């Protein structure tokens, strides 16, 4: 029987769907935090580590990255709001705040 050592785990390929979400299964400690926080069931429980099954549904909220204790998930989080992006572009700023600048 082949043993799965640390090295093998580290060599698991990273998984990247069409957005900015990147999952490094080799670092996953199977704590299940991502399963708790994801509102779109991007991850599903696995025996040794979670599996990313709905990467395309990710809305890049960043909850999983923020709560993953093993840095197994990377995502360039941000708000998927066209109004905010258009207003920011018109005002020449990187980002606008909801409420004060936008959606009033």
């Amino acid at each position, binding site marked *: 029987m082949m043993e799965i050592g640390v090295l093998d785990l580290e060599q698991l390929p990273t998984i990247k769907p069409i*957005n*900015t979400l990147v999952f490094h299964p080799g670092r996953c400690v199977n704590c299940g935090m991502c399963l708790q926080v994801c509102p779109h069931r991007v991850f599903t429980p696995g025996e040794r580590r979670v599996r990313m099954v709905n990467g395309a549904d990710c809305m890049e909220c960043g909850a999983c990255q923020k709560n993953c204790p093993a840095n197994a998930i990377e995502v360039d989080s941000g708000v998927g709001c066209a109004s905010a992006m258009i207003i920011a572009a018109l005002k020449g700023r990187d980002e606008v705040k909801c*409420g004060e600048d936008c959606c009033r």
Partner: protein
Amino acid sequence: MSSDYASDLLPTVARLGKEERRDHAKARLGFDRMGHRVRPGLYTLGSPNRESKVLVTANYTLSFDALRSALVGRDAFLLVLDTQGINVWCAAGKGTFGTDELLKAIEATLLAERVEHRDLILPQLSAPGVSAKAVKEGSGFTVKYGPVRAEDLPEYLDIGECTEDMRRARFDLRDRMVLAPVEMRNYRWGLILMLLAAVLIPFYGLMAMILTLGGLFLFPVLLPYLPGKALSFKGMVLGALLVTPFALFQTFPTADLVTVIAVVAEYLLLVPWIGYLALNFTGSTPFASRTGVKKEIFTYIPIMAIMSVSGAFLSAFGALGVVGGWL
């Protein structure tokens, strides 16, 4: 920065009254957008003891009221963070419902002295702003993420964990519909302009107004049923559907060249307009990602711009033709 947290316990009740309903109506209509605030602090619901659960929320009245009204007949502590009157999800996205604010609130309300246990129940949608690990390290409290919706809290508290369904962000008809009045308010100046236009050119002013209102109210309703994936595309389909009755009215049974030009211009101007309204709805949905919206902007804004400019030229051409007498 001075802390606005009440250091004393603040009593509250689960039953909402007339005053709350009036406040909710105003919030839903977009009046006093930033003024729907609750005082940050630690609230007592019923008569909690040192073993009672601690549930955390934002200091936006709709958030706070959703939480307490879900807990009828229960004793609990409600820890209200200072999110500057912004709801949980949006505040978490901007970090105001975040690790630092939570640590500050725990300290300012002397929470550790008031309860024996070390568990906090946070709304699931606050997770983009909160690192459970950092909260544990900073305060000794363990963050547990409860359901997405406050209405699922009784079941969650009874069974002690979330079901799969409770973990999912849904966007039901009711959730989509309540957004329409606020959207309408966001476009109030445009609507007023169309009303003024209706005085000069009644047919077109009213048409633009009816289409805009139709877009704002029907788009959320029809969202799941309109074809395509991009909201812009769905909106453009809805725009075309809404222009068609007007176009048929104008061209049936016969139409001269001027009318045909006018009808084509209507499609070219109003289809991208409803598409644009739909594009701006992305921020209201619980599923649009930044990557997706960026892609959508770069794909559809040029199409909308080309259509609008062509429509404007065609309108000008038609109007000049009529005035000049050569059409």
